[in-house]
């Protein structure tokens, strides 16, 4: 079982531009001059959630969701972004989005309308839907998903908040465990591990999300790497 992953070093999944070896080495955490703004995707903090654990993990630096917690003493931690709430019509949202676009001269989420994808979790009896355009980073999404399915614990994503592909043994632990892992179906219909591409690219290509057990996700990792190689 270890064999396919022994070559991880060679076909290393990294978050830098292809051939950008220096960017990789100097820790992908530096975002200065990095066109894709990987700081968002890389500098993620862990968010382990279940109702029992409560707000503890949100005390990690930079988590804005903390504030909303304090305002809700009567109920469990603030809920994740839900479809159609607050009830503002798409027309209005699009108008505002267009304005912000023309201000920054940069399409944040490629045009109006939401990027709604179904989220399923192995073992849960219902589906949820999320609008990927409501989130700015993998971390935001991670938080939201964790809260949405808070009765299940998410796989431990390590200090970066997502799978640290560089650390072989960590990946192995994760994939072998019964913890849950985020996977998504991309435009080509392939199931990939979430986190392998920059956030904006992910929003464009993700069609569906599935939270699957780590042990089941093993088959995804090599395919994901293969695809990544082909992309660059």
């Amino acid at each position, binding site marked *: 079982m270890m064999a396919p992953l022994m070559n991880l070093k060679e076909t290393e999944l990294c978050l830098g531009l292809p051939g950008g070896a220096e960017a990789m080495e100097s820790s992908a955490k530096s975002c200065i001059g990095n066109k894709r703004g990987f700081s968002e995707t890389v500098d993620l903090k862990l968010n382990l959630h279940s109702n029992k654990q409560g707000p503890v993990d949100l005390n990690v630096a930079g988590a804005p969701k903390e504030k909303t917690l304090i305002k809700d003493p009567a109920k469990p931690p603030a809920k994740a972004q839900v479809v159609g*709430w607050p009830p*503002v019509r798409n027309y209005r949202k699009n108008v505002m989005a267009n304005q912000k676009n023309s201000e920054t001269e940069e399409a944040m989420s490629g045009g109006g309308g939401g990027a709604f994808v179904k989220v399923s979790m192995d073992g849960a009896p219902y589906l949820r839907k999320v609008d990927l355009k409501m989130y700015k980073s993998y971390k935001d999404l991670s938080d939201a998903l964790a809260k949405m399915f808070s009765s299940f614990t998410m796989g431990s994503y390590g200090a970066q908040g997502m799978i640290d592909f560089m650390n072989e043994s960590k990946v192995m632990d994760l994939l072998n465990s019964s913890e849950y892992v985020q996977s998504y179906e991309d435009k080509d219909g392939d199931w990939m591990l979430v986190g392998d591409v920059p956030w904006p690219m992910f929003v464009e290509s993700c069609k569906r999300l599935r939270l699957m057990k780590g042990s089941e996700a093993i088959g995804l990792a090599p395919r994901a790497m293969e695809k990544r190689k082909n992309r660059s």
Partner: protein
Amino acid sequence: MREDNLEMSENVERYLQLDPRSAAISQPPSSSSSAAAFVSPANKSRNCNSPCPDHVLENVLENVLQFLTSKCDRNAVSLVCKSWWRVEAQTRFEVFIGNCYSLSPDRLTHRFKRVRSLVLKGKPRFADFNLMPPNWGAQFAPWVAATAKAYPWLEKVHLKRMFVTDDDLALLAESFPGFKELTLVCCEGFGTSGIAIVANKCRQLKVLDLIESEVTDGEVDWISCFPEGETQLKSLSFDCVDSSINFKALEGLVVRSPFLEKLRTNRFVSLDELHRLMVRAPQLTSLGTGSFSPEDVSQGEQEPDYAAAFRACKSLVCLSGFKEFTPEYLPAISPVCANLTSLNFSYANISPDMLKPIIRNCHNIRVFWALDSICDEGLQAVAATCKELRELRVFPFDPREDSEGPISEVGFQAISEGCRKLESILYFCQRMTNGALTAMSENCPDLTVFRLCIMGRHRPDHVTGKPMDEGFGAIVKNCKKLTRLAVSGLLTDEAFSYIGEYGKLIRTLTVGFAGDSDMALRYVLEGCPKLQKLEIRDSPFGDVGLRSGMHRYYNMRFLWMSSCTLSRGGCRDVAHDLSNVVVEVFGSDDDDDDDFTRDYVETLYMYRSLDGPRKDAPKFVTIL
């Protein structure tokens, strides 16, 4: 911008349902031997030489009924007897259908023979918030096909939340030579090609209003498709057409439209272009300003005198637009402020400092829409000046659940104290208190529409930490004219017991993330006799709650419940027991999900219908 008063009257089918006699009346009058206990014997002898007494009566009636325009009155008249039903049907020129699936187009054309104006509403309101998969229905096609044959003199069509194609618009343009008014609100499915055809073929066109609709860019220069020569145009609204237009053609059109009163441009019309239009149409009463930014700041040339253009529009009472505005130019509207009765800033990120100098002069404002960027401070300024305010809508600049929320109960209370004539309010905020709601209920007794959206779900009173029950209780208790209510925040069943106890005139109720148990639903269904539209999402109401309304559903336009705790079996039982009610069940997506339990009902949408389940339901909809 202003919702029509059409909501106030009951619609056609309601009266057809209520009265047991009407079951017979609703059949098209066929032969004299039909179930007509009301046909007098005299009618049967049509061979008499002198006019029968009933014929005389019918003639008189016909003349009298021409003066009756209210739908309520007309519906009542039609129930008197068969002869009155017939005459009323012949003299009803305006038909309002609140749910396009409550009857078939054939039924409409059989009963009413001389319709000149048709208002049709399609999808339920929660479809606006992505709670309904696309392609659910509400197609205009069957209606335009039926009316094209039956009503050659149709003049007016007003559609809301319908699916309209370019072909439909083409058929409309070709079928009705005297067509005068087309209004499409929150519609989709058509594009600039369809609009071009209407512009070109409807030579009597007075009104072309496209409001908050999704219009595909067919890359057609539709403005140029209006015919040459003087037009009859009174109102042209295209601010939702999100593609550039031929400005020269627009300018030419405005010049040859002497009757033009309302013009709402889109964001592709710059401020200097707007200036040119205003100079050519100083008679305008309503103006949608487009972007409100100059095309480019030309250094050498002199900038147009925008304020002068506004000053010249002495009849201007309604301003909207400002979709990409440049703050420096905002003061240009000052000359018209004193005359304004309606001001819509809700697409403009206006700060309190930008607002204050302007609102200071708006003494006559009755309708004000804005973003919460004006902050509590801006609302206080409104409260200080706008004593005639009837309708206030404050939308969130950042429409996310955990956004900052620059307005709160402070602005809300200020409004209640300053604007005592308030009738309608829509308010998005992150913080609210029961005290502020109570204050408004006492200060503004004329409230008919109260919609509060506390964006963070389940938020309690942020000062006391208690649920918002008492605040909403005060609203329903003290605002005795309340017909529409939308609740939010942390609410227990208690709030609903108040609604049921005091909300005797409520027709529309919107509930989200509220209540503790089925009792809440029961309070409402048993307590609110006028309830027509009930839309609920993400609340713990199940089959028991659903059944508590069995006696009511015939008298309601619809019930929507999504992400509650309904079971398929429970919904099926309801469908089984209510024969004239269509029960639709669907998920939030248009796929078939086999891996998930089929017993959980994600969305229930049920409505009364005279003609049974619709035949155009897509695969993902199950009609029980």
